[in-house]
């Protein structure tokens, strides 16, 4: 184990995987930083610093600064993957996914199926997401439900430094296209990270904490919000299962359903707006599969049906918070 940040865990993984397999290539806007500039390349290594040092070690052929052409980036990655490479492409903010959605939904996601199981598209699309930095409506979204909905894609959302490494390693070695969401407020989060080869399997939830009264399901930054909410209630004798699915597709349905069968209560927390969301998805799953175990309404704690606002006060009002989650837990546990 080594103590490092979520960011460092991702960087280490990219270094390891590029060293392990020469088919792994990294491409995106400013992933080198400074190509063609007066100061020369490797100025930055990604605007969040995740791809730092790769260019120096693996060179311009495998670490590629791309133009501001999201469709071109995703399409080039998909084509390279179809032709045997393992591209790790970066879309700087997942808000920009609308510019390359066709390459994801109609191309990468569907090759294998449309081509009768005879093609593979082992690409990873790394991207940042989430609110909390006053980055406003076009730089704060969490569009993981959009891609979770698409058959053929896998979707990973690490919430800890260890999972950042373990899930990214798995993503890069996976033969299917993976959309990899990194929460922009978590890059500095420190944690113990296993050294060397470390894989976290897809579709296997992390049981963050165990309890009896309520099941909380959350990903990314919302996991720690749930922990804070649950901790605030433990003095009252209320204990919660907190489940981080780690990947929304595939989804560890068993972990969620087993827990709800035990607790009889479910709250899903996510920072997207509510409609057709991952929160609704998990709620619907439980309402269908473990209905008889339910003791209370299934609740979701999400953002409202509005874009993410700029002003600090509004952004805070938009986001779920430990306090809001705590209130909903109390209501759910006290339901009768």
């Amino acid at each position: 184990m080594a103590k490092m940040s979520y960011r460092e865990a991702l960087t280490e993984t990219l270094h390891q995987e590029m060293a392990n397999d020469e088919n792994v290539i990294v491409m995106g806007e400013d992933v080198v930083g400074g190509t063609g500039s007066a100061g020369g390349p490797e100025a930055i290594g990604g605007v969040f610093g995740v791809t730092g040092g790769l260019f120096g070690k693996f060179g311009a052929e495998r670490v590629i600064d791309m133009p501001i052409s999201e469709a071109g980036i995703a399409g080039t990655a998909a084509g390279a993957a179809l032709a045997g490479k393992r591209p790790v492409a970066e879309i700087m903010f997942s808000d920009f996914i609308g510019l390359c959605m066709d390459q994801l939904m109609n191309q990468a996601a569907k090759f294998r199926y449309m081509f009768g199981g005879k093609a593979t598209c082992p690409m990873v699309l790394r991207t940042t997401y989430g609110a909390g930095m006053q980055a406003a409506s076009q730089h704060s979204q969490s569009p993981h439900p959009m891609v979770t909905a698409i058959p053929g894609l896998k979707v990973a959302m690490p919430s800890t430094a260890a999972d950042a490494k373990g899930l990214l390693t798995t993503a890069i070695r996976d033969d299917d296209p993976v959309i990899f969401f990194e929460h922009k407020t978590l890059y500095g989060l420190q944690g113990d990270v296993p050294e060397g080869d470390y894989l976290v399997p897809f579709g296997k939830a992390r049981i963050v904490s165990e309890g009896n009264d309520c099941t909380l399901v959350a990903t990314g930054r919302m996991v720690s919000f749930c922990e804070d909410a649950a901790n605030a209630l433990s003095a009252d004798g209320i204990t919660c299962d907190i489940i981080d699915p780690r990947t929304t597709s595939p989804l560890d349905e068993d972990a969620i359903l087993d827990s709800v069968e035990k607790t009889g209560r479910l709250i899903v927390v996510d920072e997207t707006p509510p409609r057709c969301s991952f929160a609704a998805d998990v709620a619907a799953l439980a309402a269908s599969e473990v209905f008889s175990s339910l003791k209370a309404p299934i609740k979701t704690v999400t953002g409202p049906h509005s874009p993410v606002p700029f002003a600090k006060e509004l952004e805070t009002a938009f986001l779920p918070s430990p306090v809001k989650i705590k209130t909903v837990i109390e209501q759910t546990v006290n339901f009768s």
Partner: protein
Amino acid sequence: MQLAREELEQAYRQMKTIREFEDHLHREIAKGTIGGFTHLYGGQEAIAVGVCENLRDTDYITSTHRGHGHCIAKGCDVNGMMKELYGRADGLCKGKGGSMHVADMDVGMLGANGIVGGGPPLATGAALAAKLDGKGGVALSFGGDGSCNQGPVFESMNIAAILNLPSIYVYENNRYSEHTGASYVIASESIASRVEGFGIHTVKANGFDFFEVHEVMKELIAKCREGNGPCAVEFETTRFYGHFEGDPQNYRGPDEVKNDRENNDCVKIFRSKVTEAGLLSDEDLDKIDNEVINLIETSAEEAAAAPAPSPEEVTTDVYVSY
């Protein structure tokens, strides 16, 4: 015309196979036997074949919604394709893809594509892979005149240019995107002039003449293999059938198709060129015709009789593992 006899025979066989394949589908679709949206390549054969005869199995192509010609020219199995179009279990794509998604990784055919402009970004990526592999491979995308207005197509050409990729952009200008005239929707003088604006070496050529296509492509592809970066071609061509099967074509000039069939039929042009030059005889060509007609008939009969996929197959092949 410095092609060996076998090369000429092979080229003619390929063109004729495409022609017969499409003519068969045209008749069959009218009967209602084959479902889905089908776009026939008839009339454009010289391009697919003239291009692909210069490619290796290890080279990549991406195709379009009008993809049968490209598939056959790149070496996809005709029986497998026919079964695919009939939606059969042992079609090339197990009946899951259909006309717009025929593909065969084994021969570097990365798929027909139902998204206009979908192919070029993928070919650009395949070209990146080929460059990294360092074995002189190239990737080539086919696109129609209409595809040259899609943003992702421009993005990929720019990417190929800045990364100096062995990527070739072939535009088949058959004058129409669906029912809309190319001259109206394309602002620039030509597709070629616009592509040149990206600093990509671009050629305009006659797509009715197999020999011109072949020669132009031979040179461009060879340069590309040597690491000279991307290039593009705009071919003049025509389609004999409607945009899709069922299209009444009332947007075309009164005698446009008739005239094209008479004067711009690339198969006829090939035939008269090789016979006039004494390279192949009418008998040689008739023999090929018969073989091809036979192949298509047999493959259609087999396809018609082949079993449909079983319903459980609907959820297989979504992932490698899940």
